[in-house]
């Protein structure tokens, strides 16, 4: 049984599926990175993904264009980000509660919205056709390389954008003045304010970017991964993205690696559940257990680092 299992994961298609499964979580996790850098906790990622996933399908159906669908999902993501921002920053609702509210909209609210716009209940089955799904690309040259081509080429457009976004977000955060402002606001909002940075504006921008990225993640889910929207399809990916951000120490590349770890766990789950004599329920635990274990390992390593730092500086007071 074990050999059969090893055979199945040592294949190009397994690595291909890791990349495919990672993409939506990566989008949302990058959203968490940007928000967190500005000192904003965006727990609404889950809900944003769900609503955007719905509107991605709706916009693409109305316009019969996948691009319009993706852009629509992105805009909806930004709007929901701004909704959280408006209540959290302007009306001072606790930002975690504002996020939970958006998650409620993403839960039952989407079922209601779907009915309101289309009269359908529960899923968008009949709306989706092949021409409004996100297309896949074969990368010339690379696709002719054996194995590597099979793994890297042939993904959806949005998959590539997800991994390019890692680079873009890193550049945004560390090579632009906006990124500097975002980090300054997150590090110390008062200090940032004192040198003339509009903290409120920066936080609004950060949470909009966060919403946009989660929106793309949602579009990926409904317009490529599941080929249609149904309630509960996000299945905690927005929450896992929060964990991936924490595990990746809030840095784009680290977050990509932890998202890949989740992708690996999820892909493993699909493979293992195909084996006989294995409980599909226990296998379903893998990504969530991975996440907690990852968080714990990260926390332990941080603790050690802090302790070492303190030991090297005997005069410091424990805070």
């Amino acid at each position, binding site marked *: 049984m074990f050999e059969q299992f090893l055979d199945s994961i040592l294949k190009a298609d397994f690595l291909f599926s890791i990349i495919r499964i990672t993409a939506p979580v990566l989008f949302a996790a990058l959203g968490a990175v940007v928000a967190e850098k500005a000192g904003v906790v965006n*727990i609404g990622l889950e809900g944003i993904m769900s609503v955007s996933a719905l509107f991605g399908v709706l916009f693409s159906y109305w316009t019969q264009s996948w691009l319009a669908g993706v852009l629509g999902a992105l805009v909806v993501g930004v709007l929901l980000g701004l909704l959280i921002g408006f*209540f959290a920053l*302007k*009306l*001072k*609702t*606790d930002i*975690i*509660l*504002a996020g*939970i*509210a*958006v998650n*409620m*909209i993403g*839960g*039952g*609210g989407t*079922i*209601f919205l779907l*009915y*309101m716009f289309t009269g359908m*209940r529960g899923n968008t089955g009949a709306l989706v056709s092949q021409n409004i799904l996100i297309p896949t690309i074969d990368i010339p040259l690379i696709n002719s390389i054996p194995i590597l081509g099979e793994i890297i080429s042939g993904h959806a457009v949005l998959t590539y954008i997800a991994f390019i976004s890692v680079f873009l977000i890193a550049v945004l955060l560390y090579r632009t003045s906006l990124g500097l402002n975002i980090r300054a606001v997150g590090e110390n909002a008062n200090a940032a304010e004192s040198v003339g940075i509009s903290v409120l504006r920066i936080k609004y921008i950060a949470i909009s970017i966060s919403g946009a990225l989660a929106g793309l993640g949602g579009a990926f889910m409904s317009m490529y991964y599941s080929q249609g929207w149904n309630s509960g399809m996000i299945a*905690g990916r927005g*929450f*896992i993205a*929060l*964990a991936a951000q*924490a595990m990746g120490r809030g840095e784009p590349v680290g977050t990509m690696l932890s998202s890949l770890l989740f992708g690996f766990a999820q892909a493993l789950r699909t493979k293992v559940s195909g084996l006989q004599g294995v*409980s599909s*329920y*226990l296998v*379903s*635990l893998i990504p*969530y*257990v991975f*996440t*907690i274990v990852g*968080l*714990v390992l*990260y*926390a*332990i390593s*941080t*603790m050690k680092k802090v302790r070492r730092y303190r030991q090297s500086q005997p005069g410091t007071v424990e805070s």
Partner: protein
Amino acid sequence: MINRRMLVFNLLRGAAAIFLALAVGFIFIVLSSDEPLNALRYLLIGPIFSIRDGVMSFNAISFQTILAAMIPTIFTGLAVCVMFSASQFNLAGEGSVMLGGFVGALCAIYLNMPGWIHPVVCVLIGAAVSGLIMLIPSLLKVKLGASEMVTSLMLNYIIMFIVLHFLNFNFADRSKGATQTFPFQPTAKIPALIEGSSKLSWGFIVALIFVVIVALFMYRTKWGYAIRMIGINQPFSKYSGMKVGATIVLSQVIGGILSGMGGSIEVLGRYNTYLWRELPGYGWTGITIAILAKNNPIFVPFAAFFIAYLDKGCQLMATYSDVPSEMIDIIQAAIFLFFAAEQFLAKYRQKIVVKNTRLEMGLKENNNLAQERRNA
């Protein structure tokens, strides 16, 4: 007199928030329904009054259903009050309810005991297991600084899949079409409060008793005081010698116990066999209730009644008109946003504070000033 003005303001502010949330709901109803007035009628008065031939009459059965629906959410609301009072956003109430219900159900099937004692033992075991599971997010937070929010969210899924695993592979009654356990022993059922078809069990009374217990705990014991102080100012609590870590763990274990108790009481009071195959949602409702109650246990039953009423209204609306019952989530989200908004109507509060302060300066009651500042 001064505090009363603030109280009146807070009540009016809450009413305005709820009104706005309902207004948002109405807009969506009007947008989605062909017969909005009919839908509204079922939403607002349907839960308590039945209308036949234009005559409204009190519907006792429906009223009992609403009370019955409050049983699990009072418990989760209390749990969230305790956990959020310490400013710890543990969201595993959802999983705790399911776990408590499942463990309670297993005890109801496999333990042999006389009536009355049996359900008590089942509920206590269910609550204890749920309390223990809360050690995971709380200890990870206190010892390692891992976000309790993220770990508790993951924990919900982990609990769900573990329960499903045992339900399907170890305890399933294969003679039934649906996945469910064997029936509970008759001794384990929580008896109905009122004879008849309603699901209103003695659990309702137990829930109300726990409202009082939790209120006393939060406002009349040093542990409750420590929990609330940590929520208000954690560094201050630490420097004044409170055991911050232990208190945070305590608050979350209590949260787990209360949610687990709610889950097992709900399962033993409402069903004859365990059949939850997904997270039941009471944990999230508990958060809405705690927000409406401003984390004060005494207000929890009222908030739970309001939500149960709305929920029933949404179900009726879905049955008798063309608006889906998931409408409730939109209204709940709006309530959430407005009710928890500190700055909502803040200008008026500012005026009251200024007026109060002037009064107090005149009276030179410095003690009251400190009190007021804390209230504000």
